[in-house]
């Protein structure tokens, strides 16, 4: 029988911050998105205050600070390092691991007899080695492991570990039967609403549905969910993440941008980052999409949300081609008189490198070999000496539009100058 565990860090970003700053203990803590815009993570105390996810921070700032809350900019270097530590520790428990996101992973745990005990060992080890609290859910399918994790996290009495393995039908229903279907992995808001209309509200009801009917009325995906809720494993571990179908690079600007030259620098820089990612997964792009946005939270300012896709004759991963196309697209959609808040670049129609494509009789011939060598050299230099060491001139030198991250904590684990200070006083 298959056995899956889903290990999930509690309030991951907020917990990372707390490991290295004892002053944050017990205080409501929120972590803000790029540019300090929206709340992307909350400590238990902040959740208890009723602060919803994704709220624009300026809307809650006054009240939150009055209540003694602390807001921090997202410190992705720290979170990525802590995530690597956690995933590396978890890899020691099973040869089969699927890193599902920065703060959760699936493990295959076939062959263990005391699964709750293993769950507790996992939890204690991660806690002791990293200071991060985790919850463990264990079940015969990934969907049930996810649901068990929900129980471990939300229901008291489980001590952060919930195993559904070996439970009789009635015991299983007592644990998960009454959970609302919205909590089930893969059941989104729209599907929930439609199921509710059919009178299906709980996990027990969804499990009892006829899979054939579900397939007909919804999709094969939801049919699989029903089977997985019944303990039939349909989803295997994805041990290697599939290559991305699109690559996006988008940020908000630190201050509104009005001029084309500044936008050109930003777009060129985002495109370069995206191109690097593209080459890393050994793909080429068939087109590039450029999008601009004004600030929708300032309704009295004129609004403009243009976007354009520039297709390539020859799919490419050369930063110079991609930047050229991005700038051409940008010039087509740029209008004066707007305060631009955000730019987004997306590489689309990705294909593996070296896939044959139909040539264009009228297009200029390519020099793929020089291009590949140059790009390789560029990636090596940037990896070695820091991002942006070598860049196309269009990216500019000053980069005034860079993100605002005024409340960022030190990079405690990845920069020598930022290490914690141990007082000997």
């Amino acid at each position, binding site marked *: 029988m298959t056995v899956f565990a889903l290990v999930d860090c509690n309030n991951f970003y907020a917990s990372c911050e707390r490991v290295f700053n004892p002053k944050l203990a017990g205080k409501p803590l929120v972590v803000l998105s790029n540019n300090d815009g929206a709340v992307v993570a909350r400590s238990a105390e902040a959740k208890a205050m009723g602060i919803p996810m994704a709220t624009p921070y300026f809307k809650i700032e006054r009240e939150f600070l009055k209540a003694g809350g602390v807001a921090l900019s997202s410190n992705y270097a720290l979170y990525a*390092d802590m995530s690597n530590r956690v995933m590396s*520790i978890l890899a020691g428990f099973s040869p089969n691991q699927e890193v599902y996101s920065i703060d959760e992973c699936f493990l295959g745990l076939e062959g263990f007899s005391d699964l709750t005990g293993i769950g507790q060992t996992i939890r204690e080890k991660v806690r002791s*080695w990293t200071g991060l609290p985790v919850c463990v859910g264990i079940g015969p399918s990934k969907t049930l492991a996810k649901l068990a994790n929900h129980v471990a996290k939300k229901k008291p009495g489980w001590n952060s570990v919930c195993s559904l393995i070996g439970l009789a039908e009635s015991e299983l229903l007592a644990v998960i039967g009454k959970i609302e279907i919205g909590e089930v992995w893969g059941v989104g808001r729209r599907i929930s609403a439609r199921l509710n209309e059919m009178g299906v509200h709980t996990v027990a009801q969804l499990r009892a549905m006829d899979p054939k009917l579900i397939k007909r009325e919804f999709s094969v995906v939801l049919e699989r969910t029903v089977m997985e809720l019944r303990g039939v494993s349909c989803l295997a571990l994805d041990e290697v993440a599939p290559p991305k179908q699109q690559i996006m690079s988008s940020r908000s600007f630190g201050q509104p941008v009005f001029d084309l030259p500044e936008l050109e620098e930003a777009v060129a820089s985002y495109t370069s980052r995206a191109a690097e990612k593209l080459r890393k997964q050994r793909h080429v792009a068939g087109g590039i999409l450029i999008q601009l946005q004004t600030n929708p939270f300032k309704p009295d300012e004129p609004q403009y949300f243009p976007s354009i896709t520039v297709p390539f004759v020859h799919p490419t991963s050369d930063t110079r081609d991609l930047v050229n196309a991005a700038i051409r697209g940008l010039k087509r959609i740029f209008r004066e008189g707007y305060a631009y808040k955000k730019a987004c670049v997306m590489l689309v129609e990705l294909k593996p490198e070296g896939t044959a494509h139909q040539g264009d009789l009228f297009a200029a011939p390519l020099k793929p070999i020089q291009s590949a060598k140059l790009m390789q050299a560029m990636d090596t230099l940037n990896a070695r000496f*820091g*991002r942006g060491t070598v860049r196309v001139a269009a990216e500019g030198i000053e980069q005034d539009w860079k993100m605002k991250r005024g409340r960022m904590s030190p990079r405690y*684990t990845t920069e020598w*100058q930022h290490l914690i200070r*141990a007082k*000997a006083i």
Partner: protein
Amino acid sequence: MQQQTPYPSLHPVSVLRPEQVAARLELPVFATAIRAGFPSPAEDYIEHRLDLNDLVKHKEATYYAWVEGDSMQDFGIHDGDLLMIDKSVPAEIGDIVIAEVDGFFTVKKLGHGVLLAGNSSYRPIPINPDTGVLIWGVVIRVIHDMRQRKQRRKL
């Protein structure tokens, strides 16, 4: 602009693996003594290179900290020293530990129900529910920069 700090400035490390967040010092090890004039080239005897990261037993649990202050000087820990901390090992009496006290990290020696300083001008800190002392990790190595200290004395 480089940040001004009293600590040695090192290259920023952009890779995030914990084992790589350490100075890479590789020294060749020779399998035999080499005599002058011996025909065989020395490189043939290079077996592997030593790396200070070999001293890290639990890379996922290893963290670093800078020392600020002189309260641990009798134990050989000085202002500006670099501490290597292992969070995975349980603290025992007599260990040098990093503890959370009053919202700060402090480095002290763990005694029976008390944190001890290595300097007679500092009083021990009792560990009890009132002081809220928490042990964060165990210090397993200290890196002390001899040259930097000398320069500082000159100043």
